């Protein structure tokens, strides 16, 4: 069995890739995908610790997060479509009406 550090490293890498994607990319769809990466990084951590401690609750939580991610993707994409219909763009740096 692989030591826990490998799993955590994989989770950390995924998390950092996701965060960089969220912060740097302009396309909202890519940002959504990056958020999925972050969520999956969390899932990997949960499952790894569940395995480590022999406690199944972590895996149950991972399942919940997958369901949540699906709902979030549906809602997020809906918002993006509605936004696109109004502004004909999906670039987040053009969504700046809420500034001073």
């Amino acid at each position, binding site marked *: 069995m692989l030591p826990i550090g490998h799993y955590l490293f994989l989770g950390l890498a995924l998390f950092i890739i996701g965060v960089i994607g969220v*912060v*740097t990319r302009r396309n909202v769809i890519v940002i959504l995908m990056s958020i999925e990466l972050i969520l999956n990084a969390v899932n990997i951590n949960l499952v790894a610790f569940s395995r480590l401690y022999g406690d199944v609750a972590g895996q149950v939580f991972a399942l919940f997060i997958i369901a949540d991610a699906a709902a979030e993707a549906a809602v997020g994409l809906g918002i993006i479509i509605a936004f696109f219909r109004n502004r004909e763009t999906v670039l*987040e*740096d053009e969504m*700046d009406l809420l500034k001073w």
Partner: protein
Amino acid sequence: MTPSGYFLEHLWLIPLFPLVTAALMLFVGRRLPNPAVSVLCVGSVGFSFIFALGAVVQLLSADPEHRFTQQILFEWLTPGQMLLGNGHLIRFTADWGYLLDPLSSVMVLVVTGVGFLIHIYSVGYMGHEGGYYRFFGYMNLFMFSMLTLVLANNMLLMFVGWEGVGLCSYLLIGFYFLKKSASDAGKKAFIVNRIGDAGFILGILLTAATFGTIRFTSAGLGDAATNSGILQALNSALEAHTLAAGASVLTAIALLLFVGACGKSAQIPLYVWLPDAMEGPTPVSALIHAATMVTAGVYMVVRMNAIYQLAPTAMSVVAIVGVITAIFAASMALVQNDIKKVLAYSTISQLGYMFLALGAGAFAAGIFHLMTHAFFKALLFLGAGSVIHAMSGEQDIQKMGGLWGKIPVTAWTFMFATLAIAGIPPLAGFFSKDEILGRAFERHPALWIVGFITAGLTAFYMFRLVFLTFFGYSRADDHAQKHIHESPQTMTLPLVILAVLSVIGGWIGWPASLGGGNLFEKFLEPVVSPARAGAESAKVVEQTSSTEYFLMLASIAVAVAGIWLAYGFYRTKRFAPELIAGKMGSVYRLLFHKYYVDELYDALFVNCTKDLGTLLGKFDAKVIDGVGVDGTGWLARFGSTLSMWWDKWIIDGLLNFGAKLTQLLSFPVRFLQTGTFSTYALLILLGLAILLGYYEQHLHVVLRGAR
């Protein structure tokens, strides 16, 4: 037996008919076609006449002493308690009620009858004029007011009618209001009448304060209302010796009321409006300024005769003013050239006769002359209108002549009226005028002499008018001559009816000395000489028949002499009028300029009033407007400027200062809000990293615990 019947119960309908059509005309008349206007307006007056006739016939069925019908429709004014001159506190009321007695019977028949004929005539005369509906609206309003005046059962309601006819007179004189002289004449009539009205209303107030009531009489009312009339109050005051004949309060009432009568009935000194009133359409002159309205003063004095009979001083004033007016106006009529002006002065003169009769105590004779005068003077005016119609609007008798054969109906009827006014027996004017002169002779021979001379002048100027208008050769220009034509039947029919009345109208007063019964005087007796305890009974000096015959012959002789003189002056030219006028130049000029009375009034009153008005106007402009209004305005503006500065710099300034301060303080942090969420995400991450770094110790504890 008290009189009763359908028409007596519906007295209130008599004034209502013309009121309804008047309202109709004045509100929607513009949209009605002329024939509808004619039918409605003439018809309503016709209905009034029928109802009046019916009511009088039913009144006649009662015994002479019971010929009173009084109908109180509602209590109109109840001002409440009033303190009388004698210290009694009474409840003063004025009702809206109608009184039909022999006196108002005569008036209501004259007003509706002559009014009806003149309405028919107007259909023809006004047919081509603009404002047809307006004319008939005013005429019907006049009929309503006049009927209210004559049927009123109290002085205040009479005053309502009195003012109503004054208003209609003003409106109708100024009917051609685009013509300045017409609108000026209307204003003059109104203003001069106001002076008289002031006297009348003071008389009403004094009557109310003296007797505690303004109802003429309580006759014809139920038992509950006995002794609620002036007549009854007067009688009880006489019985209680609180008032006596000749008391100064009675004289004051009588004189104040006579001032009102002077204004309405154009007596000296308030006659000046009547000649100018001829600016109105001719039917108006006939109806208002000859037959009905101007006789309202006579009617009012007769209505109040109980008070006059107890005020001998006032009676003398009435007689003297009357007789002076009669001769004064007749002298002015001698030289006028406008056909309607001659008739206007003649009207004033005849009204003077009526007041002479009243002053001489011959109230019935005054009303008798009022009636016959209504017939023949209305006829004269309508005839004059017909002549003017034929002459294409020409009114100057110097430019007429030779109309006798061309407009025969007008000419013949005019001739009858002229004979009637000149006092030729057996036409109407003879009986009434003779009656007046006889009673004047009883009162004082001097009154008779002046009246007698006036009768001669009347015959002279009337025949001057007839000869210049209808006889000789025509002096009109060619254009007018070509258009001479007889008037349509709607105009000639009233002429013929009035001519018949002018001939036979006097016969109901056929004097006893000529074998008649003088029915008219007997008819009026219950009103004009009520039995009164303690009152000085009218000193009846029975004339011997020979005096009476002498007076009669004298008045016929003077009339014939007047006619003969006029014949000599204007027909055979035996005397040249120009020569006489040249010889007596100053007298002629004096008469021609109407004694310069208008100029005198202008100088004395009108200009003074105007100057006062100008002065007050200047005061208004300089002091009230200048200092008061403009000063207040300036102050308000100054104050508001101050207030504006305070508002702008202090109130708004504080607000703006707060806003500016906030803006200034927010300057450094404002740029954090970029609106793009990648910035926010980065910031969140940063915050998370800072938090994690800050709680590093605790993190170790958490992680260790987890392990």
